[in-house]
């Protein structure tokens, strides 16, 4: 019989202890795996959409709030800035592209973002940054009329009302190109909202990006300010400006210039997201410690179970030695047994962890607005399963050494009572 067959037979014989030990490991590994999947979704949620963005410029206030508002459409804008700032930045020698945003409306729970056709510039990173067609799943970009904007800011009604909706919005509301939508003023669920009594033509649907842009409705900026309810905001017409500096030192140049001004604030998207992830990371560490502790306890259980089991099995080990099994093979037998229990537990935990994420995905989404992908397997999980198996083998090493050193004659003599 091979060592593996002996291991399997032994584990099957001690099935209750095997099952309990494996379940202990499964519990810890399952929690860690579920945590890793959710963490991965959080990191993706907050890092992927921010990738390739440069700076966000807005009203003075919280830089993180500005980024969350402009990139993730999760927070209200800290305030508004005048249209002149857009012109100023667009003319700046260090700026390659500026995309203005004005927010404050919603459509059936989805935020409405007023912007310009600059959103569809190839340099705007999301959705796919390879040109206009790559950004759209259907239809065409919205048009923007600068003269119309100026007229709207002067109090004239806008005649160009176009909307491009995110993929998620289109799917959730069944919108197609050619449909008409009627945004409401106000963004919060409990905010007093009323419809603008004007219709926007859906002219395009954004390609899926896996970012917050899937869940927004874009309208042309001139139409936003053509609405009577926005009359009060015409002096400070913009919520934020996404600024894409030219390559090289231009980011540093812009930051140096803009940080010195009191009438605005500038946030470097990557730096703010790093800070945000660091804050989330503190909770990660706590959870990781708790989950890691449960794995350590499970491994300790394997260790103690193997040690106490070996005391009861000393007679068996003596017989195996008497039959001619070498000490090294006895050691291997015990170590492989412990590693097998750990591996089995780790695999069950791995599957259970993903099952947990799958089952609780809706709840996580309702809680945090993030739906983790249960089918996604990260490299950390592979490392975890292998690491737990290795730790299981190490847990079996000490009892394995006891088996290695077993005094076969003494054990047999003791067992025979002579």
């Amino acid at each position: 019989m091979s060592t593996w067959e002996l291991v399997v037979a032994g584990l099957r014989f001690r099935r209750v202890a095997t099952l309990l030990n494996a379940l202990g490991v499964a519990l810890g590994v399952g929690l860690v795996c579920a945590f890793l999947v959710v963490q991965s979704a959080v990191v993706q949620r907050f890092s992927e959409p921010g990738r390739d963005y440069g700076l966000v410029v807005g009203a003075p206030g919280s830089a993180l709030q500005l980024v969350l508002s402009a990139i993730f459409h999760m927070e209200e804008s800290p305030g508004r800035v005048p249209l002149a700032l857009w012109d100023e930045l667009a003319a700046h020698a260090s700026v390659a592209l500026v995309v203005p945003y004005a927010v404050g409306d919603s459509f059936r729970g989805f935020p409405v973002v007023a912007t310009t056709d600059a959103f569809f510039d190839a340099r705007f990173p999301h959705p796919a940054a390879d040109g206009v067609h790559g950004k759209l799943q259907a239809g065409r970009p919205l048009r923007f009329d600068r003269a119309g904007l100026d007229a709207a800011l002067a109090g004239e009604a806008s005649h160009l009302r176009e909307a491009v909706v995110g993929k998620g919005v289109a799917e959730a509301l069944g919108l197609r190109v050619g449909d008409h939508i009627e945004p409401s003023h106000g963004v919060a669920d409990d905010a007093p909202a009323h419809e603008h009594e004007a219709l926007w033509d859906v002219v395009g649907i954004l390609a899926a990006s896996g970012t917050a842009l899937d869940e927004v409705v874009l309208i042309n900026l001139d139409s936003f300010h053509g609405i009577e309810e926005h009359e009060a905001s015409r002096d400070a017409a913009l919520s934020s400006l996404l600024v894409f500096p030219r390559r090289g030192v231009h980011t540093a140049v812009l930051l140096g210039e803009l940080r010195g001004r009191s009438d605005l604030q500038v946030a470097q998207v990557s730096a703010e997201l790093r800070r945000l992830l660091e804050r989330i990371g503190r909770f990660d560490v706590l959870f990781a410690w708790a989950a890691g502790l449960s794995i350590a306890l499970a491994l300790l259980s394997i260790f103690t179970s193997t040690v106490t089991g070996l005391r009861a099995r000393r007679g068996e080990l003596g017989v195996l030695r008497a039959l001619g099994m070498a000490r090294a093979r006895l050691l291997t037998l015990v170590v492989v047994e412990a590693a097998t229990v750990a591996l089995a537990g780790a695999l069950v935990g791995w599957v259970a962890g993903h099952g947990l994420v799958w089952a609780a995905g809706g709840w996580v989404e309702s809680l945090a607005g993030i739906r983790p992908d249960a089918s996604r397997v990260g490299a950390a999980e592979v490392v975890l399963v292998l690491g737990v198996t290795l730790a299981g083998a190490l847990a079996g090493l000490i009892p394995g050494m006891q088996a290695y050193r077993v005094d076969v004659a003494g054990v047999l003599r003791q067992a025979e009572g002579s």
Partner: protein
Amino acid sequence: MRAMDVVVTDLEMRFAPGADEEPLLRIPRWRVPATGRVCVTGASGTGKTTLLHLLAGLRQPPRGSIRIGDVRLGELREVERDAFRARHVGLVFQTARLLPALSALDNVALAAGLGGMPRATARQRARHLLERVALLSRAHAFPAELSVGEAQRVAVARALASEPGVILADEPTASLDPRRRDAMLTLLHEVAEAHQATLIVVSHAHEVQSRFETLVRLEELAHPGVAEEVA
């Protein structure tokens, strides 16, 4: 299988190595010829089991040598002694001492495999031996499902699994009732005869001693010439 004699020379074994008290075991010279069948007797605590462990290579004497066939056990490294024991020595204990996680067939096949037989051959050999001890129908039973007598017969089959040249049995009938004891002794003699193996049994039971033509008292082995060669 090749018949093997067992030769013990100048053996001394103390309870504590180097101690001044009288040795536990002292055997100046003792030879059991190949295919011989010997029962070693003696009072409890005189070292019968220790002698068997020494002959099996489970312990090493501080002084003296043991030769089985052409091999001096003291000249082998431990791992070589393990391999030699697995291949050439069959052990029967007071109780069956089967591995509880393995079926009767696997207990026997394991010993055959440790003796160097390929897996298929080992299992074939195990079936043959279980048939020999009239337990083929119980081949897949686990030790807990076997009666005491059945388990001890499986233990005999296991001792023969690697076609050993020497069978060593330590009080093999101690746990059996009289009827099973006789059957066990008959079985041991039969299989030793059939396999041309040297059989050394240690026992203080008169019922066991009466089944052997050659009896050796352990105390006599300490005196040169008294039991230099038996069988």
